[in-house]
């Protein structure tokens, strides 16, 4: 009962804002190629869901974004663990990482386009590049932040390096690695959509652009809303995963 009420409360603010927008636009009689009333957006959303185009576009975006996430996030995690575990490797790579990290993925799109043309490979490359660094930084920090006493203990009881990684470092760093992964999931979606907006002729970003160019602001906002909802769902999934992996007892290891 109470949790239901709590959930409903979360919906109050956005609903109020939507109603306000609807009322305001009706009152002002807004006529625009770039804006649409919430009610029109809702209709367009229903239509796009009904004809399957939205779901198809979602599958394309999620497929490319997911593959990019796996490649970039996986490599980032591996590198983060490596750099976190071996301070030498971490320090040697520091400058290169710091120099490459701020390179915006959008600046890469033209280069990736020339190399691969449009298509999944290009999108995966750009998404992977973008997911790589946050995952690397956060997992490196998570590993470096493991309670030193635990590592000392592990060394003293004679765990091998490998065992220390598996039995101490990873479980202790897991909560923060999951936070990083959650972030990376969000980034992957955002970048995948951006690549589609800027170049790739499929997926949600492409749909968004086409809707805009076809003078369908209602459909454009429907896509925008759907992207938000998708991100929200992914995040909820990640939170559930976090809950499963972190019991009340090992939570303390996160901090």
């Amino acid at each position, binding site marked *: 009962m109470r949790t239901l009420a709590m959930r409903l409360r979360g919906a109050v603010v956005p609903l109020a804002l939507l109603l306000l927008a609807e009322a305001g636009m009706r009152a002002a009689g807004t006529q625009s190629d770039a804006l649409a009333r919430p009610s029109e957006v809702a209709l367009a959303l229903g239509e796009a869901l009904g004809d399957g185009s939205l779901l198809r576009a979602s599958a394309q975006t999620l497929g490319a974004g997911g593959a990019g996430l796996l490649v970039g996030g996986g490599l980032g995690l591996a590198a983060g663990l490596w750099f976190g575990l071996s301070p030498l490797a971490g320090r040697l790579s520091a400058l290169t990482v710091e120099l490459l990290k701020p390179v915006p993925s959008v600046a890469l799109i033209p280069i990736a386009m020339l190399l691969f043309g449009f298509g999944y490979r290009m999108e995966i490359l750009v998404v992977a590049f973008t997911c790589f660094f946050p995952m690397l930084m956060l997992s490196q920090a998570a590993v470096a932040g493991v309670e030193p006493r*635990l590592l000392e203990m*592990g*060394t003293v009881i004679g765990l091998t390096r490998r065992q220390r990684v598996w039995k*101490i470092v990873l479980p202790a760093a897991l909560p923060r690695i999951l936070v990083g992964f959650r972030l990376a999931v969000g980034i992957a979606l955002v970048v995948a959509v951006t690549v589609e907006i800027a170049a790739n002729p499929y997926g949600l970003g492409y749909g968004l652009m086409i809707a805009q160019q076809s003078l369908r602001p209602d459909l454009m906002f429907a896509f925008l809303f759907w992207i938000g909802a998708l991100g929200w769902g992914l995040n909820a999934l990640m939170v559930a995963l976090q809950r499963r992996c972190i019991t009340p007892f090992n939570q303390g290891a996160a901090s």
Partner: protein
Amino acid sequence: MNAQVVPLGQQPRQASSPRRQAAGAGASKQIRFDRVCLDLGGRRIINDLDFVMEPGEFVCVVGPSGCGKTTLLRLLTGLVKPSTGAITRGGVEISGPSRDVAIVFQDYGKALLPWRTVAGNVSLALEAMAVPKEERAGRIADLLRKVGLASHAEKYPSQLSGGMQQRLQIARCLAQEPAVLLMDEPFGALDAMTRQGLQDEVAGLVEELGTTVLFITHDLDEAIYLGDRVIALRANPGRDSSSLAQSIAIDIARPRDQLATREEPEFLRLRRHLFDFIQEHHK
């Protein structure tokens, strides 16, 4: 039956306590501190420490809070390197932690894996030693029984009281079957009865296995009751005086008894002697 008050820097030439003869093969290595100094944060914490631990010897360390007892113990594990001087074991310089040196940390709360149960935490040591899976359960149950945690095997550390956490740490160290056991105020969080029980348990175990023990405590009675020798450290040694203020051999027969031993005149004499000495050096 006389307290050998050994002048600083000199060590007893011979193993005089019965325990030392009982030393097993695994412990047949002398530990030697050779003019060890250590600076931390620009301050001299330990100065000119020079002493020898015979294999199988049970050495207790006392001294005021902050005098460097924990630091001394960390030096022995190899977790901290001396600024000058060397620490050798069996003639070889200690370069880093080794499996046959076990340590019971003072801050027990931080040395346990919060995501493993009581049994899981003990298991960690067995896993480190590559004990086959099927053997582990039995040995874990055995160890937990020894420290009185048998009925808490499935709890997480955060569900244990302070004393129980410390006992868990001890169980894990015993699982290691170490040749050298370092204990940093291991019984500080225990009640009197549990403490006495564990004192005898540990004393018996190390005697049997010939383990060399360095035992930090702030309880003089405990130091005398357990030790073959008691070492007193000096706070703020500076650069002129050695950290080692005194080394007192305890010539009381083993096995010792919680009631009888503590009433022996030699025990009382040593206690008074140590007490006076420390009081004198305090402030």
